[in-house]
């Protein structure tokens, strides 16, 4: 809850998964691209400020990925669809699925 | 401006430029010399340590020279940074205006090397001092020595021996690898160690009574109990409550990473009849490659990442501790080990949150307790293997290794343990270890030969797996352990303990009736005949002449 986990899709794109509720459904989780929509740097989660931050040009995003301050204000981090099957969390990405170990990693969040 | 003035300015500037180029040349020459090891790198002694260096350069020039060659010196870490103590520490003493402590513990090192200290604290290395109350130490303290001083057997010409230190073997043997319980001399003639000082979470002693009793010289420097210091055992029990000694591997005062990367460094302790890891390594392809390609190992490099900075061969550090491109470095070798072959019967390295091995047998209970599985640990090791080997190759090796460990466990270790337990249960051997022959036999079997076999398989040394290992295990089991147990039973039966003797014999009979032991009683003529036949088919002639 409230923590974030970093993944890399098979195509190499960075994805941040965070748990934001504890209702026990797929809506608890959110999977966001870690690429800043401004100029392509990598954002990271700042737990102390409850925000995603891009160090390149001071972009700030709220926990659901919406830009709140800095140049990317009003833009959003890309969102990946999620689904839960048999207690495992899956991220739907282009091309191909995630490997078993990555799914295992996602499970640890719950 | 006149032309002549300009000319002279140009002349002056030209000379200055030339001087700057000469300076560059000089810098290059110095750099090359330092690189080639012909000149000492320039060291700026931190102001706080200048006085130490000035004085100790006279008294112990070696210490200062070692330090000058260290990364610490280049990065401005001087004497005081590590040896500084605070008012209230057990071992503090005033030394030319500084509060100094002699022993630098992992707690001191952790001021800068936090991650390394934490990993080390979780490691089995740091628990090496636990041996102080174990079976091995009973050997040194009682069997080999005596727990109290005793009178000499006779006079030693030219050397006045008033009393014999019965603990000498433990102090100079066991504890130099496993670590001592560092102690001060007490004013009443005893010793004061961590148990007396009772350090709090900050490492400062809470028992001021014990502190007051520490014997000191005329400069107020506390006096160490000579049996416990000097000591660089890896599980040393320090007076600030910390465990271990960083200098066990990172020898003071140069703290050379180069040395810690080489197998000889581990070889101070990981050798000998009971766990000859270094010899095993030297026999393996890994060790052979290292000996051949040592110059290509980039041992001096600041960053030493397998797959990036070197590829020539692995050392102990490469597989067990160092970084590779897929796995960060760790100071807990146990993070990558999937079996512990230390106990009589090998255990899977499924560990709990406290980094202790989970020994529960109930699967549900196991899952509850396990925080880090043996399989996860093995995967970390594989991440290193995979720099040179394909997944199929690695998995194949692990199958071979697992099979050997299981074979040893099931054919010899568990049966041997069962016989030993039965003898104890029936009162046919005493609780005291090493006072009966069969106890030595059993110790040889698992502690020496059994470990050699398992370690040999773990690091690809066939001779240690077989001739120094399983061969001797088998001989010890069939030719020594079983006959000795039978003899004990026979002796017991003759002395009115027929029932107990019967119980032991039943255990042995049941064991030997199992298919894997059947050959011992019934012979294996059928098998040799089959082999001879196969040989004949293969080579056209039998090994027939030989019988």
């Amino acid at each position: 809850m409230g923590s974030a986990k970093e993944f890399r899709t098979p195509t190499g794109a960075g994805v941040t998964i965070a748990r934001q509720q504890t209702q026990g459904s797929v809506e608890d989780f959110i999977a966001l691209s870690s690429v800043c929509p401004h100029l392509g740097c990598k954002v990271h989660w700042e737990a102390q400020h409850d925000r995603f931050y891009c160090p390149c040009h001071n972009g700030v995003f709220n926990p659901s990925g919406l830009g709140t301050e800095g140049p990317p204000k009003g833009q959003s981090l890309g969102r990946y669809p999620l689904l839960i099957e048999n207690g495992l969390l899956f991220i739907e990405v282009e091309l191909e699925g995630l490997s078993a170990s990555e799914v295992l990693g996602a499970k640890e969040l719950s | 401006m006149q032309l002549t003035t300009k000319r002279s300015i140009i002349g002056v500037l030209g000379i200055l430029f030339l001087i700057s180029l000469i300076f560059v040349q000089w810098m290059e020459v110095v750099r090359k010399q330092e690189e080639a090891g012909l000149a000492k790198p320039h060291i700026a002694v931190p102001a706080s340590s200048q006085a130490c260096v000035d004085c100790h350069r006279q008294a112990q020039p070696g210490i200062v020279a070692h330090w000058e060659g260290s990364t610490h010196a280049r990065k401005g870490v001087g004497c005081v940074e590590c040896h500084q103590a605070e008012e209230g520490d057990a071992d503090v003493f005033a030394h030319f205006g500084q509060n100094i402590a002699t022993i630098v513990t992992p707690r001191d090192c952790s001021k800068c090397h936090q991650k390394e200290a934490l990993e080390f604290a979780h490691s089995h290395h740091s628990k090496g001092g636990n041996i102080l109350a174990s079976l091995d130490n009973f050997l040194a303290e009682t069997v080999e020595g005596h727990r109290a001083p005793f009178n000499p057997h006779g006079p030693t010409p030219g050397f006045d021996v008033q009393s014999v230190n019965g603990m000498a073997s433990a102090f100079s043997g066991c504890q130099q690898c496993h670590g001592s319980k560092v102690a001060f001399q007490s004013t009443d003639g005893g010793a004061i160690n961590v148990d007396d000082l009772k350090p709090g979470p900050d490492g400062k002693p809470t028992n001021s009574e014990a502190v007051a009793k520490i014997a000191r010289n005329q400069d107020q420097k506390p006096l160490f109990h000579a049996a416990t210091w000097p000591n660089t055992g890896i599980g040393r029990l320090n007076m600030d409550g910390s465990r271990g000694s960083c200098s066990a591997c990172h020898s003071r005062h140069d703290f050379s990473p180069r040395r810690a990367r080489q197998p000889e460094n581990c070889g101070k302790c990981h050798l000998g009849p009971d766990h000859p890891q270094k010899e095993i390594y030297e026999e393996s392809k890994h060790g052979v490659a290292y000996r051949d390609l040592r110059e290509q190992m980039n041992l001096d490099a600041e960053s030493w990442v397998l797959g990036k900075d070197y590829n020539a061969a692995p050392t102990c550090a490469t597989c067990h501790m160092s970084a590779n491109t897929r796995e960060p470095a760790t100071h807990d070798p146990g993070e990558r080990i999937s079996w512990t072959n230390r106990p009589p019967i090998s255990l899977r390295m499924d560990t709990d949150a406290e980094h202790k091995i989970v020994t529960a047998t109930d699967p549900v209970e196991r899952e509850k307790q396990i925080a880090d599985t043996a399989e996860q640990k093995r995967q970390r090791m594989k991440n290193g293997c995979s720099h040179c080997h394909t997944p199929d190759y690695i998995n194949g090796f692990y199958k071979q290794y697992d099979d050997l460990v299981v074979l040893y466990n099931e054919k010899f270790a568990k049966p041997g343990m069962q016989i030993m337990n039965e003898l104890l249960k029936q009162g046919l051997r005493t609780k005291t270890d090493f006072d009966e022959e069969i106890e030595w036999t059993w110790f040889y079997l698992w502690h020496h030969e059994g470990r050699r076999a398992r370690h040999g398989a773990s690091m690809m040394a066939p001779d240690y797996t077989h001739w120094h290992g399983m061969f001797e295990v088998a001989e010890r089991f069939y030719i020594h352990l079983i006959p000795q147990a039978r003899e004990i039973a026979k002796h017991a039966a003759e002395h009115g303990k027929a029932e107990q003797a019967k119980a032991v014999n039943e255990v042995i009979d049941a064991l030997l009736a199992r298919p894997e032991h059947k050959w011992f009683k019934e012979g294996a003529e059928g098998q040799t005949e089959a082999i001879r036949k196969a040989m004949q088919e293969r080579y056209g002639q039998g090994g027939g002449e030989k019988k």
Partner: protein
Amino acid sequence: MFGIGAWLHERIPIRGEQLREMTNEPVPNHLRRWWFCLGGTPAYLFVVQIATGILLALYYESSPDRAYESVRHITHEVAFGWYIRSVHKWAATLMIAAVILHQMRVFFTGAYRKPRELNWMVGMCLLVCTLMTGFTGYSLVYEQLSYWGATVGANINETVPLIGPLMKRLLLAGEAYNQQTLPRFFILHAAVLPVAIVGLLGIHITLLRLQGVTEFQFEDEKPDEPRHFNFFPDHLYTELIVGLVLMILLSVLATVFPAELGPKADPLTTPEVIKPEWFFYVTFRWLKLFPGTAAVLSMGFILFTMFLWPLLDGLIRRFWPKSEFSVWAGIVAVLAIVGLTVWEGAVAH
């Protein structure tokens, strides 16, 4: 001797007097003051860059796998590698500084005005080429800054309407940083841009020679003195002095503050504090202040205005001949540039 002279003269039919006239142009008196020699400085440093750049290129490898390691090799192992690399880096810094100072001098003395408008525009192209060479230069090291600088730079291009995506693809050789990106930067840095600079410099100097150096008269000059002095050897000496001072300065900077090597590029993590080289502080701060497209377009607009300034200034002066507008505009621009640079330099984010 005569034999060789005649042989040469047959093949290069030029006489001594002609040669002297070509090279020994009379130089106006104001050039005795050093700050009028700033135009020669970048050209001089450019030669230093070519020389050191060729030496570095002997060892540099432009693939992402090898780039960082090869720069480390140059810095730590190759004989004098650290010195050559440090001189190259410092000469780049000084060259950009000299270009900016030269441009400021030309602007505030009005030397861009009729008939020299075109030469100002050539100068603007030189400025852009120099900045691009600096940018591609530090991208080659494959430090963290190199990687993220290149990524951000390419995405800035993408923001440009219509041709943006194409420009990004051309620069990165794909949609994102990949194996082919670094070789492109290397070709740009070591071949395309230097050749462009040589060509532009040729035009710049030819135009200067055709039109003559702008002449100024200072109040402390006596009217009856000759208004020109000889290029050779008098002005050459001045240039030599400037050159030697620069070489000494470079040597001192390279030895006292040698070029270092930051952490290797990590495509997975943008470092917490990341900044470009100082000459991009202005644009960096600008990008932080305004949203993407607005920031990029406004920067383009400002650059375009600078490019066309001689024509705009001409228009203004036609309607208000006494106007000092350009001076005020220049002062505001300089203050803005210095202010943004200092701001960016002073704070972490």
